[in-house]
């Protein structure tokens, strides 16, 4: 068999974020992709349209996002690592299918490379789909695991993490990135070995034809309320286990910080610049970056609020994650917000100006609204 691995583990390569994500998915064992074109994620299907065939997989440009997600439903039901990707309105169309797959407890991986919204919005990077991602997104009581990369390296490595978490918990797992992370090029390296999908542990819940065993049914209809309630509580317990075990975040300069910026993805990256510049000026500013947006690092932020009395949430939206920060902090610290919706980006200097402005005033318990 010819060597299917394109890059060695640890090898530095210059890549676009979307291509890194696509190659990372293939490297993690993805053998089926279905999707419908939408900017700014088109590099993912374009890359996979040739790459996935090199490794014996299949690619379909589907007639719609709805068709794509339901193809993935079938693929996940067969136990194969499948993937779909989209942006904004396309992810909205997939939500019914994602809800079914979550209820059926099948693993799969998808990516939302967010564009500006609502409506058709624009194709510029945004973080406006945070609510949609972290609350499940579709109808009914369910959650999906949400990973938020902030570099091309993480774009390339998170698909493996996503598939592993999806398999571990039999749950959908997504990467939530934006057009900037998807389109920018930077050196990256894969931190995991090539995954041979044939060597993954067998799944005892998939449909394979009932040879030598009783038939299996994958079903999300539970007509009797007590049975559906039981299923809901079963899912709830699983989500609790995920919240206990899978929270991921990163801190920078937190030890002596008087003010901490809370930001993820691109806005975390921009805020890093503010932290570096601020520290040079002697400002005690730190950065807290949630990597899993669901499960959200509630406990870590709550503990942070015991000693840091001023927090600044930076988001490329009107204020979505800031609500989770408020819940986590439970009134222990003042929460400030800097938001740039509509596909606009804050600059590092803008963030630093805001930090200095907040430090110049006494801490107020109320979160200020707006910019």
């Amino acid at each position, binding site marked *: 068999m010819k060597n299917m691995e394109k890059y060695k583990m640890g090898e530095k390569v210059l890549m676009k974020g979307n291509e890194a994500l696509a190659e990372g998915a293939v490297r993690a064992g993805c*053998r*089926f992709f*279905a999707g419908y074109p939408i900017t700014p994620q088109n590099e993912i299907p374009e890359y996979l349209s040739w790459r996935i065939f090199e490794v014996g997989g*299949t690619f*379909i440009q*589907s*007639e*719609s996002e*709805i*068709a*794509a997600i*339901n*193809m*993935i*439903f*079938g*693929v996940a*039901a*067969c136990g*194969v690592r*499948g993937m779909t990707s989209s942006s904004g309105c396309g992810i909205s169309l997939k939500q*019914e*299918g994602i809800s*079914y797959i979550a209820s*059926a407890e099948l693993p799969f991986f998808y990516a939302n490379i967010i564009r500006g919204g609502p409506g058709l919005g624009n194709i510029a990077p945004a973080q406006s789909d945070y609510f949609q991602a972290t609350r499940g997104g579709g109808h009914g009581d369910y959650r999906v695991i949400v990973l938020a990369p902030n570099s091309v390296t993480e774009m390339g490595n998170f698909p493996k993490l996503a598939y592993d978490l999806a398999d571990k918990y039999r749950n959908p797992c997504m990467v939530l990135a934006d057009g900037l992370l998807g389109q920018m090029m930077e050196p990256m390296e894969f931190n995991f070995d090539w995954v041979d999908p044939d060597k993954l542990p067998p799944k005892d819940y998939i*449909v*394979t*034809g*009932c*040879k*030598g065993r009783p*038939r*299996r*049914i*994958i*079903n*999300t*209809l539970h007509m009797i309320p007590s049975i559906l309630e039981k299923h809901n509580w079963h899912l709830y317990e699983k989500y609790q286990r995920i919240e206990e075990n899978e929270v991921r975040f990163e801190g920078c300069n937190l030890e002596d910080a008087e003010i901490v910026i809370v930001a993820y993805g691109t806005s975390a990256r921009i805020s890093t610049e503010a932290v570096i510049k601020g520290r040079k000026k002697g400002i005690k500013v730190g950065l807290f970056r949630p990597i899993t947006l669901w499960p959200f690092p509630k406990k870590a932020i709550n503990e942070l609020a015991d000693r840091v009395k001023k927090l600044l949430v930076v988001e490329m939206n009107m204020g979505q994650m800031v609500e989770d920060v408020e819940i986590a902090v439970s009134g222990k610290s003042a929460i400030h917000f800097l938001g740039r919706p509509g596909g606009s980006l804050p600059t590092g200097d803008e963030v630093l100006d805001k930090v200095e402005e907040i430090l110049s005033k006494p801490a107020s318990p109320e979160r200020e609204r707006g910019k």
Partner: protein
Amino acid sequence: MGRIYKKPVSMTKIAMRYCPGCGHSIAHRLIAEVIDELDIRERAVGIAPVGCSVFLDEYMDCDMIQVPHGRGCASATGMKRVRPDLIVFSYQGDGDLAAIGTAETIHAATRSENFTVIFINNAIYGMTGGQQAPTTMPGQKTTTNPYGREVKVHGYPIKVCEMLSALDGPIYLERVAVNNVPNVLKAKRAIKKAFQIQLDGLGFTLVEILSPCPTGWGVIPKKACEYVDEKMSKYYPLGVYKDLTKKK
């Protein structure tokens, strides 16, 4: 003397909950008989739709999956692409296949995906209480056409076999009915042929079944069977609409 009529192995013992005279139960049984005769039960995966036949997964004794309303052809595509060795059938009603799932149906057909669709045309939405289907005939009364389907307002019905036969992708399209014994026997032959084509790896097959819905039509079962002959098969002529097996 041996038993000449018994429950197919590919059927479970669960009693069907369809209305008396409903065509779904006959169609289910025909599929089970065909699966038995072709000896493919252990390779088969069936797809149950959203509609009265949502419980198909309880009645078929093979691996089953129930998918969102209208998306059977998409899920079947995914399954067949990653597991071509499986025998996949998607069972769908007319609302499911020709309204909410029209795009998935047409595109699976035009890609000639190698699975089999069993399409139940009962000219009505059974499960939700008898509303207009894309196949409701002009003049036919439903709970959302209390004065009968008026084409100027509601448009014309969709003739699925005729529409799909315009595409290059489908290999085999036939319209049958399950309202009397000769038609049931013909329906079974069509289903068997469709599965055989899939086994031979040739591509997309669809069998449309005109199916009585006495409850939705507001008539007794006997009248419903007559209605299929008198009205439905006039508007939806039975027969083979496409068969590329001879050429291939």
